[in-house]
């Protein structure tokens, strides 16, 4: 792409801000979908919390406390990967992307709009989820600055990698309608194998190895370091939270996501050029 005559056009940042605003409006006005986004993790927390919440998985650690960490990690996957991999095929189908492609809106501004929306929705989801956890299941908030710092970097790395992967994966569903049937099972399998619904250390070894290839396992592990006491780290095979490894794997997935998104993302349905 040549960059002639872009002088005077609004900057990518300015258009990106406009995209965030408009995308958020569209997200929250699609009431059913927005409501489901926030209700779904809470429903899971209520179900799992009611059944197992009072049981201790280790001395002084309730299942609810363990589960909230995993659900926050899952929230990253829901708001970024799952939402985008389902929403973008619909936008490709209903003409949104084709219309945008015919305007001087830079591609980067479109992605900024998506990332901005994902961040806002994630923050709202985490807030609701932890509030329910604190009020009904005695979940306690992270207490140290180090834990909060881990929460921030894990969220950022998780959101960036899963957003990019969601953008890249949006080319896989052939139709907008079929997208959720392909995307949801992937998310569900990763949740089961990454120790969101069950205690990770009690999963079969092969399952642990499988999930170690994907971001959610590491994201959930980092979130457990935020919400569980240091003593809980001893449950793992290595006896630590392996935060360096968590950051490394998530960073690698950011790079993989970026490459896949740049190579595979397309504005138009396959076979239309």
């Amino acid at each position: 792409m040549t960059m002639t005559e872009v002088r005077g056009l609004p900057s990518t940042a300015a258009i990106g801000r406009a995209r965030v605003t408009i995308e958020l409006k569209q997200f929250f006005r699609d009431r059913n979908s927005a409501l489901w986004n926030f209700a779904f993790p809470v429903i899971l927390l209520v179900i799992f919390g009611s059944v197992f919440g009072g049981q201790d998985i280790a001395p002084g650690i309730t299942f609810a406390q363990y589960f909230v960490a995993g659900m926050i990690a899952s929230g990253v996957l829901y708001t970024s990967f799952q939402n985008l991999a389902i929403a973008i095929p619909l936008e490709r189908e209903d003409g949104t992307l084709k219309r945008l492609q015919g305007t001087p809106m830079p591609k980067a501004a479109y992605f900024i709009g998506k990332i901005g929306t994902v961040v806002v929705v994630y923050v709202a989801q985490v807030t609701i989820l932890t509030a329910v956890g604190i009020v009904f299941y005695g979940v306690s908030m992270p207490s140290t600055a180090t834990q909060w710092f881990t929460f921030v970097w894990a969220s950022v790395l998780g959101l960036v990698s899963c957003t990019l992967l969601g953008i890249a994966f949006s080319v896989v569903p052939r139709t907008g309608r079929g997208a959720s049937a392909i995307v949801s099972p992937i998310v569900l399998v990763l949740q089961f194998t990454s120790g969101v619904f069950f205690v990770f250390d009690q999963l079969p070894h092969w399952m642990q190895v499988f999930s170690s290839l994907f971001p959610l396992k590491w994201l959930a592990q980092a979130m457990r370091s935020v919400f569980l006491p240091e003593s809980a780290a001893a449950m793992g095979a290595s006896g630590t939270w392996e935060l360096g490894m968590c950051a490394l794997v998530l960073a690698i997935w950011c790079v993989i996501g970026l490459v896949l998104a740049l190579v595979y993302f397309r504005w138009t349905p396959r076979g239309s050029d």
Partner: protein
Amino acid sequence: MSEPAVAVSDVRKRYGDLWALDGITFDIAHGECFALLGPNGAGKTTVTEILEGYRGRDAGDASVLGVDPAHADRGWKAQLGIVLQSDRDLGDLSVEEAVRHFASYYRDPRDVDEVIEAVGLSPKRTARNERLSGGQRRRLDVALGIIGRPRLLFLDEPTTGFDPEARRDFWTLIDRLKAEGTTILLTTHYLEEAEHLADRVAVVSRGRVVACDTPSRLGGRQRGHSVVSWVVDGVPASEVTDTPTHLVAELSQRFGGEVPGLTVSRPRLEDIYLQLVGDDAGPAATGDAQ
């Protein structure tokens, strides 16, 4: 401004074994309204989307505002307005929100309120787009197409599904854009629309331009045989002639002034069009390569 706004020379496009465009050639001058007319599947949308930068081509040269559309950039796109066929997006936004948002992409957009007024959507400005009728939806598409003050406007079958009154209103809007000097490429299957709006018409059939001229001269229309009819002793009579004025003068003499029931008809654009596209106009020619 000697170079045309749009220049298309021997452009070809193949889908599998089918040549959707089989060497298409035309020019559009600055400020001209140019209509592509043809049956479904003739290649109108394909050539339009090549010029808009959406599709590649397999052969031939194309230049749009001096740029090869295969090498589109933001500065070039900022000078275009594109009204595509049948979009269903933006349903959760209001008319005003959508138009205002798209205005933020351009350096010198038109006034949002004026554009909404111009397309006749002022009473619907706060309505959710998903509640607009088909015709109102198309007018929103046009509003988004012109908000950036384009030098060249693409209109792909803009009035499909309009009632006659809405179509008249739409023509008035396009006439105003023409008066402001906007170059327009229009595709349509309404002959009346092409005749009303276009300075020149190209008839496309099977991926080629089979005729290109002003609506009144298309296919030798101005030279075509005229039919002169009149009534003599209560019985209709008519004669086909190349020299209708001469015949009318003769009749006038014969009747000593007024000729009872006189009509002179030239071939209609529709007659010429059907002659030009031949078999391709039939119902078999469906399945537009969109």
